[in-house]
């Protein structure tokens, strides 16, 4: 779960990372009032979970109430790379002597925590990583031991930070690491971490991403969740406990297991179609889950056909088949549904579907056949041939049905 800057800063502050005082507001009037409680100059910062907001005009300095009003009204509602700004963070402006980069994350390959610090912060750090990798100091930390002072020293000396910043930076790094572990974060990143003219080290931004798997031991996570940013289809899926990502195509996809679902997307693409979504019902899905999934998918007006691709392991295909039949009886399934069942209890599942035929319910023997059928049916529904809908990206592999 990715947090907004202001949420991240408020969390980091609890661990002793110095941040500027500020307030998160969602109206222009509240922005003006908040600025009045801080000292001018203040900074008006768009709260969006996407990089490049400064360049997009989402961060502005204000020296007066009028300027706060002007900037806040420009920034609230602004669209930054598809993210609409609903909240701005008003914070007291900082004097900046130098800008650094600092982060802690998990290095999957090394199976260790990784701390990174650079004296070249503020700018595009990924570019620094590419062009001047030596400018980023890196230290691996054993998760069973945790951070010791020497790790922080190694980062600070390794990055050749200004000697004035050393002790402040070491303290910030230790706090940041503690936040990383105790919050169950996947990432804590501060860019820029600034050195102020008075020698203090201070976090001017915060990117914190929390591990949803650890939510059970952090009751405070739920309040941080940004439901409003979700696509309405994603919101409906989340309410039903489904792992769903909305896409732009016309073939609705339901599968079990992320790998198989991704592979299904690929195969639909190869058959000349485009997936409308990624939907993983997970392991051990019962009839109710399948019926819910069908409801979410068929509620998407772009969907012209549905492909259900299940390879049962922990999931039982007879329950999946029951869920499909339940869906057909309880909701309006107005598009064809192609079903491929294999694995645990597949024969029972296929028999159940065969014994209960429904209009628009199309069984398929293999994954490739199912994908081709779903793409054909989607094209028939849309009145164009599969090749036309994919921008020529693929062709219907080995099938003769080219739709209407």
């Amino acid at each position, binding site marked *: 779960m990715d947090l907004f800057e202001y949420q991240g800063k408020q969390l980091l502050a609890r661990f002793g990372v110095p941040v500027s005082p500020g307030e998160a507001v969602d109206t222009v009037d509240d922005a003006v009032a908040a600025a009045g409680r801080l000292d001018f100059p203040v900074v008006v910062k768009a709260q969006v*979970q996407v990089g490049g907001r400064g360049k997009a005009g989402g961060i502005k300095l204000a020296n007066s109430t009028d300027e706060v009003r002007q900037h806040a009204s420009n920034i609230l509602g602004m669209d930054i790379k598809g993210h609409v700004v609903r909240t701005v963070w008003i914070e007291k402006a900082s004097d900046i002597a130098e800008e650094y980069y600092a982060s802690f994350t998990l290095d999957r390959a090394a199976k260790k925590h990784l701390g990174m610090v650079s004296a070249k912060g503020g700018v595009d750090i990924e570019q620094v990583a590419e062009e001047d990798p030596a400018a980023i100091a890196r230290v691996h930390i054993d998760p069973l031991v945790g951070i010791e002072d020497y790790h922080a020293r190694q980062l600070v000396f390794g990055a050749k930070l200004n000697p004035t910043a050393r002790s402040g930076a070491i303290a910030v790094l230790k706090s940041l690491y503690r936040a990383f572990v105790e919050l169950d974060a996947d990432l804590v990143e501060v860019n820029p971490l600034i050195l102020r003219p008075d020698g203090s080290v201070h976090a001017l931004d915060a990117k914190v991403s929390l591990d949803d798997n650890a939510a059970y031991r952090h009751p405070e996570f739920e309040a941080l969740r940004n439901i409003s940013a979700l696509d309405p289809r994603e919101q409906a899926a989340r309410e039903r406990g489904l792992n769903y990502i909305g896409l732009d195509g016309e073939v609705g996809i339901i599968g079990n297991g992320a790998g198989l679902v991704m592979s299904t997307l690929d195969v639909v693409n190869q058959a000349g179609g485009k997936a409308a979504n990624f939907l993983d019902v997970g392991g051990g899905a019962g009839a109710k889950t399948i019926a819910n999934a069908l409801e979410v998918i068929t509620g998407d007006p772009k969907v012209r056909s549905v492909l259900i691709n299940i390879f049962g392991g922990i999931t039982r295909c007879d329950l999946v088949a029951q869920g499909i039949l339940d869906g057909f009886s309880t909701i309006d399934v107005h598009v064809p549904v192609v079903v491929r069942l294999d694995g645990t209890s597949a024969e029972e599942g296929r028999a159940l579907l065969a014994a209960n035929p429904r209009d628009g319910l199309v069984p398929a023997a293999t994954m490739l056949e199912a994908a081709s059928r779903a793409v054909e049916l989607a094209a028939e529904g849309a009145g164009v041939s599969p090749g036309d809908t994919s921008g020529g990206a693929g062709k219907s592999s080995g099938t003769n049905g080219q739709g209407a």
Partner: protein
Amino acid sequence: MAIIIDENTRVVVQGLTGREGRFHALRNREYGTKVVAGVTPGKGGTDVEGIPVFDTMVDAVEGTGANASIIFVPARFAGDAVYEAADSGVGVIVCITEGVPAHDEARFVNYVRRAYPDTVLIGPNCPGLISPGKSNIGIMPGEITLPGGPVGLVSRSGTLTYQAVHELTQRGIGQTTCVGIGGDPVPGTGFIDCLSRFEADPDTRACVMIGEIGGSDEETAAAFIASEMTKPVVAYVAGVTAPPGKKMGHAGAIVSGSKGTAAAKIEALEKAGCRVGRNPSEIGELMAEVLKSI
């Protein structure tokens, strides 16, 4: 031969009395796996369809001579279960549980690797592994496999593993061992651990490796294949058309460079001499060709 588990593997089920533990343990036993014990604290002395239940792993190992464990406990207890299994001395630990917090995982994976370098931890968040005809430890449907080799299979994805095994079996190509290493950030066992075992296994003549987008494990495995593997590898990577995940912050990109996309992984694997299928069906087709040529 098979890798990691075979007919001599004696498995204890941590969480045997739970719904999933019971269902899959009985399926594994039906397949022929030696399921010798269960562990559920407080239920020692009872049994599940004749499988004796113990309160602790130490009791279960002492009482039955178990040398492997499979974990079906909820995510919040998974770390505890892995530590208990490792300290009980079993040589193979298969953690099926999904949703384990990444920080817990990073700790227990490092612990097991360091304190018990010879112990194989598979998972968490994995379907387990099967040496067809010998032992099935996990949730894979055993009936889709074909005993006798000559293919060893390793996969990051669960259901995609079944699909791939199914493609091989449909063409009459058997398997020595199929390992689902799981898709979590810090898996106990990786591609290279399995590929090097397959390379050393005389009955395995070729390997299938199934990856997916994210991380850089496929690229690292490709480098290993290029320098260390004499046996051919057929690969598949899911997620060619997956939307680029909106990744927050820069640290991930700095760590992995440009890696992580399916295209980059496929390129690395092809450069390493692997045949890479475009869809799961092609895994079977390509393997049939490869086996003819060796």
